[in-house]
């Protein structure tokens, strides 16, 4: 077995194991760090797959993203510091069965398919080619991703900001009543129940 194969199997095992640990650790912060380790393992596998730019970009992006995620985890944590066992699941059997069936179906599809097997030539300048492609023929696609991210920023600010000086954002958009002059249909506020 070559060193590359060994590295792949170690990284693949750690990517799957840390991915599984995300839903098994007791602290949500530990879960986000576990997800970060899974992403880093996948990024290193991409290095082995001759995609160094995407691999390193994944590692950097996910390291930062999971730090932000850890902050949100602290904000929404139900189990401070992971001192108590955490088990917040619903429809557990259905979820586990669906996950396993998905994995099994995809694996069977992979094993039954006639897959290509011509690896990238190690001498090929893949980063140079990607750069020329990004700023050449595919520039419009690349720019579209940028515009999408800008729209995301605007949407994020609007969604997460407090209501403005004109009151709550959903005021005036309540659902119509079921009977004329009645109360709005749908959710009854908890303090009125």
């Amino acid at each position, binding site marked *: 077995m070559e060193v590359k194969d060994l590295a792949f199997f170690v990284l693949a095992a750690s990517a799957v194991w840390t991915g599984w640990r995300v839903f098994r650790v007791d602290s949500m912060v530990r879960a986000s760090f576990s997800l970060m380790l899974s992403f880093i393992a996948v990024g290193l596998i991409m290095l082995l797959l001759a995609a160094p730019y995407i691999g390193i970009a994944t590692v950097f992006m996910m390291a930062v993203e999971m730090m932000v995620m850890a902050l949100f985890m602290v904000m929404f944590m139900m189990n401070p510091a992971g001192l108590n066992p955490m088990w917040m*699941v619903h429809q557990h059997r259905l*979820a586990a069965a669906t996950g396993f069936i998905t994995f099994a179906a995809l694996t069977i599809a992979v094993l039954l398919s006639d897959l290509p*097997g011509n690896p990238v030539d190690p001498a090929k300048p893949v980063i140079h080619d990607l750069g020329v492609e990004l700023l050449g023929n595919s520039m419009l696609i690349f720019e579209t991703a940028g515009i999408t991210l800008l729209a995301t920023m605007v949407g994020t600010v609007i969604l*997460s900001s407090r209501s403005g000086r004109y009151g709550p954002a*959903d005021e005036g958009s309540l659902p119509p009543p079921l009977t004329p002059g009645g109360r709005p249909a749908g959710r009854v506020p908890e303090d009125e129940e």
Partner: protein
Amino acid sequence: MTLAAVLIVSAALIGIGIYGALSQQSFVMLMMGLELMLNGVLLAVIGFWSFGLGGAPEGQLLAIVVMAVMAVEMAIGFALVVAVYRKRQADMTESLTTLRR
């Protein structure tokens, strides 16, 4: 290292992600499941590019689009979580049952 091995690893990541997205009650943990699924998708894309396209740069562009989707999912997801918490003081999926009634 073959394409089949890479794709099986990505299938495992997608399966675990689906389990997490369906089973977790907390919104933020649910989003971890979505991220894990995208992690598997990213690995599969790069695997196909690496073994199938012989180094054509357009395949890596698809991976960059997947990464942009990841960033959008996380940003809008957390914004929605914050908005829902502001409106309903809810951080669990069970707290939002308006459409069930």
